[in-house]
């Protein structure tokens, strides 16, 4: 079974999908380090902000961003498989509709988050 996933593009896409979990973990660790720095006081936090402004950090976050989008895309594509058959008004809810609803929710939630950040008065 070794290298089974290399033998078909379908399996390669599956492994890429699963690999996005590494990005999710890395970001959780980044946030955790942030929480630690915040608890250590203003100097530590400002040091952390400087680190976030470095080209290396921005590049890392661009990679994480791409991975998050790949994760979202593959998540909403597989979501219909996890749901029971739903019949509305005599017609079966299609997989495409479910996927699009997921995307719509993500877009709305993301815009709401951005808007909150943009207009937040501390």
């Amino acid at each position: 079974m070794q290298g089974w996933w290399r033998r078909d593009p379908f399996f390669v896409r599956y492994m890429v999908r699963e690999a996005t979990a590494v990005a999710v973990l890395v970001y959780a660790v980044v946030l955790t380090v942030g929480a630690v720095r915040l608890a250590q006081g203003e100097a530590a936090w400002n040091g952390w902000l400087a680190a976030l402004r470095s080209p290396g950090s921005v590049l890392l976050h661009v990679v994480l961003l791409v991975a998050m989008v790949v994760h979202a895309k593959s998540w909403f594509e597989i979501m219909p498989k996890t749901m029971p058959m739903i019949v509305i008004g005599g017609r079966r809810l299609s997989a495409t509709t479910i996927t699009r609803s997921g995307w719509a929710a993500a877009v709305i939630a993301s815009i709401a988050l951005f808007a909150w950040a943009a207009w937040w008065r501390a």
Partner: protein
Amino acid sequence: MKRSNAPIFWLLFGAGGMLSALLGAMLVFITGIAVPLGWPLHGELMSYPRMLGFAQHWLGKGFVFVVIMLFAWHAAHRILCSLHDIGIHKGPAAKAACYGAAVVVTAVAGANLFRLGF
């Protein structure tokens, strides 16, 4: 056949997966790109006074903790399963490494967020 305990980890995986699918990209963009670069959001958005205030409020603290925790447990379960896919058995060592890492992240984040006070 023995009942599996997978449901616990699968529900955490599912919740974390849904949260990261809905908000992961925008969170990364805001905290890692937009604010550090100062565009299209204000660079002062994550200043110490603002972040302290945010994390001391129960909503802000709760939000950050839930994001960190669910992202960590989602990743731990998925990485454990991926290790199995490439031939590393889901034995006690693999489980301890993956779920153990999630425990550590959750504990460190929780402790520090709590330390910040209310």
